């Protein structure tokens, strides 16, 4: 009889292999392996993630032909998109890539001029909001310095009512690519609506500050201004000259022991800013504004107002206070405007409520007519029905409802995810409202120390992004297939 020695030794392979110690693996290699694996899975028709998900939905909707059709259309669309999504998505979301990929769609709208190419790569979006990844590369293939940014950068959605967007950017490790990530939310359907991206003037931005030669005591007003900021004549106040943004000091007054400074800013373009701050010359330190600081801006004229409130000060402190003007200085690298138009495809891989629910509130009840939840957030639409009182309907209750009622996302495994209202609108007397919700807590609700920790954490995680707390990324992505219901106050709304 003949035996192979290699077979004999192989029979002990478990023991032999167990002896091997793990090796240290660089994040980049880990990321590449994950990425390659997922790409292969997507390229392999018989075993895509998406098919798994759509099968689950199929079982629940066999009696509903229309729903089934919708699911199938959705799965085909998403699968096609996901197979070829751009590199950026792996760079930003490596740790959650398998949850995110089924929701990613390739956009690939691109514009090149003045040596730069701007490309809208990919979107991870539901039907009323999501994340859009936009890359910027140099046409000559050279690297960025790592401190460039566009002087202005805007993403706008046409044909919708309220929209909110915010963005941040980062550079690839070799600095050959700059990626902007935009978080877009609307109180409407986002899909198929024209979206416009406008970016202008690539520059190195240096924050600067200069002292404003104003004696606060001399201009102190005895009483707060009676006229609302929006009703004041344009150009009123003391001008603090700056080439990009006209800042006007409009009022300095005390409200009890609080020093209030009101400013109006008119910038040539949105996004250009300057701010004033107060320094105590006795300590040389900036004085914190209290939480009463407010800001509002008008839509068209790039005019914004702030009211900064400084606590614990008296008139006797004024001679020691110095007003500092903080602004950005731009060193231009590429001038011009890069404009792109694109649309997002619908994502049917969402969860929805099936009927109307009533949430009792103090003065009546609020109807929730529709909830739709995607991987990044969701929308709630409905109508408030208040008991008539002598004073009539109190619309502020709708505001309270959309901003203050606790919302919890309940998952099938029993875990809960706290949600918060990111954007809300109210339809006036008829009580209609709409709200865009996101997982996590609003930034304002974090304690200062926690904010500081989260900022540091976000900075450490630059480049290989995780959806930890940054100002743009959601605190977590929602694993849609695991969602069971949404709880508003004590009412549980099943989602399908």
């Amino acid at each position: 009889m003949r035996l192979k020695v290699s077979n004999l030794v192989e029979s002990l392979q478990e023991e032999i292999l167990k002896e091997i110690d793990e090796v240290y693996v660089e994040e980049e290699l880990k990321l590449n392996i994950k990425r390659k694996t997922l790409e292969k899975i997507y390229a392999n028709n018989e075993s895509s993630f998406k098919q798994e998900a759509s099968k689950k939905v199929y079982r629940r909707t066999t009696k509903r032909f229309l729903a089934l059709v919708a699911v199938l259309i959705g799965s085909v669309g998403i699968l096609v998109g996901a197979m070829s999504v751009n590199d950026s998505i792996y760079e930003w979301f490596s740790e959650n890539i398998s949850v995110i990929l089924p929701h990613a769609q390739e956009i690939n709208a691109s514009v090149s001029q003045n040596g730069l190419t701007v490309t809208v790569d990919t979107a991870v979006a539901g039907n009323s909001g999501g994340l859009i990844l936009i890359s910027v590369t140099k046409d000559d293939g050279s690297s960025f310095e790592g401190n460039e940014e566009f002087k202005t950068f805007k993403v706008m959605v046409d044909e919708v009512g309220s929209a909110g967007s915010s963005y941040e950017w980062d550079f690839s490790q070799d600095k050959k690519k700059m990626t902007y990530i935009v978080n877009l939310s609307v109180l409407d359907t986002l899909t198929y609506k024209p979206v416009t991206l406008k970016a202008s003037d690539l520059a190195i931005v240096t924050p600067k500050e200069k002292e404003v030669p104003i004696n606060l005591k001399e201009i102190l007003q005895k009483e707060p201004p009676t006229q609302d900021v929006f009703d004041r004549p344009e150009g009123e106040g003391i001008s603090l000259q700056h080439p990009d943004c006209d800042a006007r000091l409009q009022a300095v007054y005390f409200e009890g022991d609080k020093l209030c400074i009101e400013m109006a800013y008119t910038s040539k373009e949105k996004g250009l800013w300057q701010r004033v701050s107060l320094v105590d010359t006795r300590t040389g330190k900036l004085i914190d504004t209290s939480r009463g600081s407010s800001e509002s801006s008008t839509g068209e004229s790039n005019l914004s107002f702030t009211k900064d409130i400084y606590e614990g000060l008296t008139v006797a402190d004024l001679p020691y206070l110095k007003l500092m003007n903080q602004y950005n200085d731009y060193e231009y690298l590429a001038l011009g405007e890069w404009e792109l138009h694109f649309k997002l495809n619908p994502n049917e891989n969402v969860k929805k409520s099936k009927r109307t629910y009533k949430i009792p509130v103090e003065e009546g009840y609020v109807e929730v007519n529709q909830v739709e939840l995607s991987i990044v957030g969701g929308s709630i639409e409905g109508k408030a029905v208040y008991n008539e009182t002598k004073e009539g309907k109190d619309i502020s209750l709708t505001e309270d409802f959309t901003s203050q009622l606790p919302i919890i996302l309940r998952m099938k495994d029993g875990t809960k995810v706290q949600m918060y209202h990111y954007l809300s609108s109210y339809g006036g007397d008829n009580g209609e409202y709409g709200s865009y919700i996101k997982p996590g807590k609003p930034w304002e609700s974090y304690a200062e120390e926690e904010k500081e920790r989260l900022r540091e954490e976000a900075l450490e995680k630059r480049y290989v992004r995780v959806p930890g707390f940054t100002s743009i990324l959601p605190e977590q992505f929602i694993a849609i297939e695991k969602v069971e219901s949404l709880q508003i106050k004590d009412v549980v709304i099943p989602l399908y």
Partner: protein
Amino acid sequence: MTDKELIEQLKRGDLPSYEALMERYTPYVLAVIKRVGKERLTYEDLEEIASEVFLKLWQKRKKLEIQAGKEKAYIGVMTRNETLNYLRKCKRLEELPLEEDWLELSEELGPEQQLLNKEKRSLIRDALEQLSETEQTLFVRRYFYFEKVMDIAKSLGMKEQTVATKLFRGKQKLEALLRERGIKG
């Protein structure tokens, strides 16, 4: 979550669990690939093989039957096989010459004795353990990792001829030990 729980979740197609397994096992999978492939592999090869291992894990998810506590061993075996297949495909694996690999025993074993069931494995383990430590090392490197005699000799600071002789004598010793333990005519 334990490995067992992750595997159970993976069988149900749970993506985060799959991702967690990848995260947990990438360092081990790479260690096995590096051990098997040694200098025959580039950085890109490591990526390619590791991704193949995890792909297979996903493809086989519904049929995975892994004894609790054996998850690492299962993934290790998959990884070694995948690495050897890759090396073969790229013609970077020098197969063992048959005459070197064959071990001659005097009589045929009955079908019920065909290797390698649990008892046989135990006998073989026992026999291999009787070899000296050097012989065991050489056997594993030559017959399990398919390293060239020349490379083994170089890394151990031995002469090529010495390694070949030790392997040959080890084989003779193993043959005798197997016979003693009932795998004989």
